């Protein structure tokens, strides 16, 4: 039985409070009108030159038109700038909320695969995974609430939700059959119902299996996991179109769902490894040996490469053909997010590949922790790169709102998953593979 250490509980609460303050500061300092927005950008100019691009672009475009046209453009530009700055705390909140929900979702997918594949090594870690996936309930609901607030026009994260924008945009009108607020929320509710429903049911069966006298709960869990994986791939793919791709509704990519999946899958596995190392170091997982960690690290290594494969496939196909309607996605990212965009490839690919290639390193806790922290930061930046360029554009910065939102959800995540782990024995009792898992040796 796991007992939630007081120090960890206090740490998670401090994270939440500090994070909430950061998020609050982000919302308070949000400009409410064009003048404030201009003043913010002007004062920021002294600090760093992140908005140079916008200024020069505006200047060159202004030269083309007549004076009146330039003036009209000027005011529309200011309006645009205001929306970007107003989006910043919302985007920061959304990216962090999605990132932590995605950790739980990636773990859930891994858990379902372990069940459906009847893996012999992992049953010892099932309670760890079940603890992590418990966050899908609050995390999913928080993301859903942010989406509801978006449909209520409290922010401008999704431009297609704005009827005025759609009225002037033929492309968005064409997509309105799919991208309309009502259908959007219904779909979101369905995805969450699938994920939360499976998580709760599988957890119930897993606990019931401990008490039962036969394996019927285990078999049922196997079947429901296999069925979930089918539904998961459909819902995850559509979720990535809805929640991420649609912040940029003029752009589309066919492998986007897989790409988002790879990102959440590798982050989920990394979280399992980190939590396992923490719990083992506190003596709650006596039967877990370094072969289990070796397996998790192999997954971290392999799925990191898989993520890179998808990242590169998406990038290279679009770069190579250079079709204007697709390539703008990467043009804005390379112009305004150069370090974040390429830095993430170094963090998510080069670092784990070089660190986790050696079989001996994969058995050492501090190597896994080091690689894991870099992978998690890298995948946060990955989500950041997916959302931010379309919502705040070149007005991005990793400052108080972004870090605050990460701390807030990190605290909530830690608090929730470790609290969930106190509710059941850390080791499943009657799993048919538990003996194999205890003696797992690679």
């Amino acid at each position, binding site marked *: 039985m796991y007992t939630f250490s007081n120090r960890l509980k206090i740490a998670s609460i401090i994270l939440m409070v500090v994070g909430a303050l950061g998020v609050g500061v982000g919302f308070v300092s949000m400009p409410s009108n064009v003048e404030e927005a201009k003043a913010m950008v002007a004062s920021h100019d002294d600090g760093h030159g992140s908005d140079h691009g916008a200024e020069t672009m505006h200047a060159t475009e202004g030269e083309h038109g007549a004076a009146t046209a330039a003036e009209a453009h000027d005011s529309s530009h200011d309006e645009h700038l205001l929306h970007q700055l107003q989006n910043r705390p919302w985007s920061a909140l959304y990216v962090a909320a999605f990132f932590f929900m995605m950790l739980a979702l990636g773990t859930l997918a891994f858990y379902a695969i372990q069940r459906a594949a009847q893996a012999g090594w992992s049953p010892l870690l099932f309670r760890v995974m079940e603890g992590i996936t418990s966050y899908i309930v609050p995390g999913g609901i928080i993301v859903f609430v942010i989406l509801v607030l978006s449909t209520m026009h409290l922010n401008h994260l999704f431009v297609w939700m704005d009827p005025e924008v759609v009225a002037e945009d033929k492309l968005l009108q064409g997509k309105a059959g799919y991208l309309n607020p009502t259908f959007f929320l219904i779909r979101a509710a369905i995805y969450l119902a699938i994920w939360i429903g499976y998580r709760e049911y599988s957890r119930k069966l897993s606990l019931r299996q401990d008490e039962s006298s036969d394996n019927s709960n285990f078999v049922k869990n196997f079947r429901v996991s296999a069925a979930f994986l089918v539904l998961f791939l459909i819902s995850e793919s559509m979720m990535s179109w809805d929640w991420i791709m649609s912040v940029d509704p003029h752009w589309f990519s066919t492998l986007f769902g897989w790409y988002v999946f790879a990102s959440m899958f590798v982050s989920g596995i990394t979280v399992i490894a980190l939590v396992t190392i923490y719990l083992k170091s506190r003596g709650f997982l006596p039967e877990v040996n370094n072969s289990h960690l070796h397996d998790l690290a192999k997954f971290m290594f392999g799925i990191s490469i898989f993520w890179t494969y998808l990242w590169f496939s998406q990038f*290279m196909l679009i770069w*190579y053909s250079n079709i204007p309607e697709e390539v703008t996605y990467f043009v804005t990212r390379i112009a305004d997010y150069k370090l974040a965009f390429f830095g993430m490839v170094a963090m998510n690919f080069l670092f784990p590949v070089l660190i986790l290639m050696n079989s001996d390193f994969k058995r050492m806790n501090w190597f896994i922790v080091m690689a894991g922290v870099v992978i998690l930061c890298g995948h946060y930046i990955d989500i950041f790169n997916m959302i931010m360029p379309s919502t705040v554009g070149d007005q991005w910065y990793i400052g108080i709102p972004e870090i605050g939102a990460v701390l807030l959800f990190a605290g909530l995540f830690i608090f929730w998953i470790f609290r969930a782990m106190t509710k059941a024995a850390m080791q499943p009792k009657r799993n048919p593979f538990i003996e194999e898992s205890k003696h797992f040796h690679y």
Partner: protein
Amino acid sequence: MSSKVIHAFYNDDDVLMHAVKKVKAAKFHIEEVYCPFPVHGLDKAMGLAPTRLAIMSFMYGCIGLAVAITMMNYMMIQDWPQDIGGKPSFSYLENMPAFVPIMFELTVFFAAHLMVITFYMRSKLWPFKEAENPDVRTTDDHFLMEIEIHDNEAELKELLLSTGAVEINITEK
């Protein structure tokens, strides 16, 4: 100098593993063990040093990557930087995404093939090589442990019989 070796036959891999551990514990040097299939953990029981093939493979991969980069940088950027379909051939980095598939494949190609050739050379395997099998049964269903004799024939024989050997032969080598 001619030396005598003892060949102990086993017909079960578990028995063989125990025998190897026992012989090691008695401080005899095991010359060789012949098996029809890989016995998991035998190398550890015999105290063999771990293979360095993976390290070689990594280095070969690095060589492959270097070959790919050098080759394409010379051909596409230095030697004749043509405009092919608007691809930017001003510097290697600018056109790099187009080279990545080749960089990847050559890395894998070098890592795999040179590692296999290294394996053949280190384990002395080639076509028309004469088989070194002391007994044909070791390729089918028998395991064979070979130990050199230094005036301790009776003692060794007794030890090997006690480990469950089904047959013991002494041959000149």
